[in-house]
C-alpha cells in the first residue's frame, strides 16, 4: 500500500500541472537527445568495426611475431597451413583467409604504378573482402586462378588499364633479384576512395610466392561471428586465438591493427559523453529550478509538517520522491519518442554520401566506412533512458531537498498577512 507521505509527494506534482508537464517534456526531450547521441556513437562504433573487418582487416589477424613493430611484408607465418587449420577450427571463426604481400611495380606500356601486390586465396577472400561490392568492371579472381589481377580504380586509372589488359608485375625477390610476371586484369574495383583503391591489387597467393620467393602466407585474416559492437569484446577471442597460432606467430585484433580507428571511436565516445552531460546539465538545472520553486511555494506547508514532527530526512524523501517520479515519467517519454525514431533510422539508415563527395569518400585510417549510417537502437535504450532520467532528477532534487530539510518549524506559527 502506498504510504501517505508518498501520496503527498505524488499529488503535489498535480498542484501545478503546467510546471510539472513542462519539466517532464523538457527532461523527456533532453534524455531523448542524449539517447540519440549515445545511439549515434554506438552506431559509429558498429559501423567502424564492420568496415574495418569487411574492408580486409578482419576482426583479428594472425601475423608473424614482430610484424606489429616492423610492418615488414617479407615476414611469413610459421607453419601457416597448420595455423590456418587450427584457426578455422575455433567455433567463433566465420572465415579465415590467408594473405601474403609484396611491394612491386605494375607496368603497362610506358606507365607504371607502385603497388603492394596482395596474394589471396580466392576461395575464401570474397567472404571477407566487402569492397568486392565495388567491383565495377570484370570479375574477381577464381579459386586456383594464376596470372590474374584485380585492381583498384585508382591503379587502373593511373595505368590506363582495362579488363583484359596484360600488366607486367615486377618485384624484388627474397634473393635480391628482380622478378617479373605477366598478370591479366580480370576486374576493377571502385570503392569511392582513392586511398583504398590504391591499396587494391589482388593476385593469387601462389603468384606472390613465386614472384617474391617467399612461400606461404604473411597473415591470416579472420572474421568472427556475432562479435557485437563492444570494441573490447574482441579481446577474449584474441586470447583464444593466441593459444592456437603456434610459436613464431602472434594474434592481433583490429584494435591493434588500426589504432587510429580506435582513437576515433574513443574520441567520438568522449564527445558524445560531453554532449550528453551538457544536455543533461541544462535540463537538470531546469528541473532543479522548477523543484526549488515548488519547494519555496510550500515553505509554510513544510514548516507545518516539520512542526508536527516530520523529520528533515522525511522532507528530503518527499522532495526526492517527487523528482524521481518526474524522472520516471520523463524517461518513459524519452523512450516513447526517441526509441521508435532511432529504430526507424537504424532500419532505413542515413545516407551520408552527399556529405562525403571528395575523392576520399568516407575513408578513415585506411578503412572505408559505410556511407549509409545507422544509429544503433535496441532494448538497451530503455534502461539507459530511465537511468539517465532518474539520475538527472535525483541530482536535480538534491538542492531543493536540502532546502526543504532546513525548514524552520517555527515558521508554522507565523501568520502570513
Amino acid at each position, binding site marked *: *500500500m502506498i*504510504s*501517505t*507521505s508518498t*501520496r*503527498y509527494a505524488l*499529488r*503535489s506534482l*498535480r*498542484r501545478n500541472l503546467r510546471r510539472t508537464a513542462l519539466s517532464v517534456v523538457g527532461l523527456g526531450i533532453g534524455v531523448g537527445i542524449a539517447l540519440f547521441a549515445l545511439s549515434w556513437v554506438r552506431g559509429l562504433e558498429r559501423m567502424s568495426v564492420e568496415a574495418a573487418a569487411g574492408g580486409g582487416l578482419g576482426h583479428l589477424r594472425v601475423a608473424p611475431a614482430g610484424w606489429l613493430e616492423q610492418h615488414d611484408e617479407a615476414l611469413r607465418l610459421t607453419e601457416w597451413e597448420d595455423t590456418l587449420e587450427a584457426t578455422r577450427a575455433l567455433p567463433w571463426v566465420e572465415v579465415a583467409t590467408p594473405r601474403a604481400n609484396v611491394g612491386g611495380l605494375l607496368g603497362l606500356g610506358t606507365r607504371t604504378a607502385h603497388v603492394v601486390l596482395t596474394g589471396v586465396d580466392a576461395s575464401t577472400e570474397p567472404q571477407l573482402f566487402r569492397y568486392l561490392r565495388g567491383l565495377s568492371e570484370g570479375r574477381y579472381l577464381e579459386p586456383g586462378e594464376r596470372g590474374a589481377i584485380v585492381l583498384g580504380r585508382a591503379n587502373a586509372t593511373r595505368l590506363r588499364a582495362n579488363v583484359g589488359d596484360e600488366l607486367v608485375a615486377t618485384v624484388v625477390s627474397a634473393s635480391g633479384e628482380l622478378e617479373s610476371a605477366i598478370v591479366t586484369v580480370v576486374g576493377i574495383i571502385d570503392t569511392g576512395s582513392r586511398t583504398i583503391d590504391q591499396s587494391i591489387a589482388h593476385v593469387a597467393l601462389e603468384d606472390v610466392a613465386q614472384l617474391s620467393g617467399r612461400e606461404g602466407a604473411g597473415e591470416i585474416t579472420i572474421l568472427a561471428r556475432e562479435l557485437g559492437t563492444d570494441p573490447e569484446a574482441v579481446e577474449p577471442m584474441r586470447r583464444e586465438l593466441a593459444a592456437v597460432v603456434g610459436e613464431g606467430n602472434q594474434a592481433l585484433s583490429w584494435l591493434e591493427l588500426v589504432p587510429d580507428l580506435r582513437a576515433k571511436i574513443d574520441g567520438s565516445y568522449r564527445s558524445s559523453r560531453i554532449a550528453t552531460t551538457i544536455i543533461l546539465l541544462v535540463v537538470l538545472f531546469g528541473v532543479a529550478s522548477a523543484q526549488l520553486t515548488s519547494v519555496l511555494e510550500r515553505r*509554510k*506547508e513544510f514548516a*507545518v*509538517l*516539520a*512542526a*508536527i*514532527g*516530520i*523529520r*528533515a530526512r*522525511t522532507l528530503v524523501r518527499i522532495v526526492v520522491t517527487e523528482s524521481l517520479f518526474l524522472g520516471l515519467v520523463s524517461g518513459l517519454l524519452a523512450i516513447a519518442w526517441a526509441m521508435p525514431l532511432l529504430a526507424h533510422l537504424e532500419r532505413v539508415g542515413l545516407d551520408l554520401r552527399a556529405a562525403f563527395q571528395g575523392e576520399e569518400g568516407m575513408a578513415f585510417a585506411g578503412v572505408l566506412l559505410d556511407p549509409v549510417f545507422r544509429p544503433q537502437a535496441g532494448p538497451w535504450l530503455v534502461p539507459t533512458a530511465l537511468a539517465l532520467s532518474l539520475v538527472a532528477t535525483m541530482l536535480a532534487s538534491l538542492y531543493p531537498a536540502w532546502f526543504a530539510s532546513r525548514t524552520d*518549524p*517555527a515558521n*508554522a*506559527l*507565523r*501568520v*502570513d498577512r
Partner: protein
Amino acid sequence: MNTEAQPTTTAKPPAVATDVVKTFRTGDMEVNALAGLTLEVRRGDFLALVGPSGSGKTTLLNLFGALDRPTKGKVEVLGNDLGAMSKSERARLRLTSLGFVFQAYNLVPVLTAAENVELILELQGMGAAERRKRALDVLGDLGLGELAARRPMELSGGQQQRVAVARAVASRPALVLADEPTANLDGKNAEQLMALMRRLSSDHGTTFVFSTHDPRVIAHASRVVTLEDGKIASDETH
C-alpha cells in the same frame, strides 16, 4: 529499529518555563520577546494565553511546542530540557507527544481529511489498517465522519479547523498547543470548536495551551495567563 533516544513523557508537568528569556535580533536591534518568564503548565490545564500583540504568546507557544529554544533560562516539555535536545530529538518529541492546531488550519491541501490525520500516525510507525481506523474514529468523534474523504478545500473553515484538531489529538498527545485556533472562525464555529477541545481535554486528560484574543474563547479556559512585555502579568484559575 529506531535507536534514537526517545523523549520522556513521564508524570512531570507538561511544560515548565523557568526564567526564560527569548531574544530576537532584527538588524542591529535586539528584542526580548520573553523577558525572564516563569510558568508551569499543569496536567489537564485548559490554559489560555492572552495579551496584546507582541506580548510573547506565540514565542511561548513555540518554546512549549519544542519548535525553538530559549536564549536564556530553561524550558522543560514533558520532562525534557529543550536546551539539551538536538533538532532531531525535538522533532521526535513533537511527533510523539505534542499536538498542534494552527490559526490558519494548515492542513495539507493535497491530502483528504482522513489522510491529514493519518500522516502523523504513519510517521509514528502505526500500521496502515490501524491508523486508518484511528483517523476515522477521531474524525467521527469530532462529527466529521462523513467528510473524511474530502480535501481541505472542499471543507468550510470550521470543518477544516476541526480536522486540524483531529490531526492534533489523533496520536493522543500529552500536550496540545493551539495558536489562536478560532481567529478565522465565526462566533458559532468558534464556540463549537472550543466546546470540542474542552471535551477532549476532560475526556482524555489532554493538556491544552492556546493563545487567543477572543473573550468568548477565554471563557472556556480553566486557567488564563496574561502576558505583557514578555512577562506574566496575571495567572488566574477559573
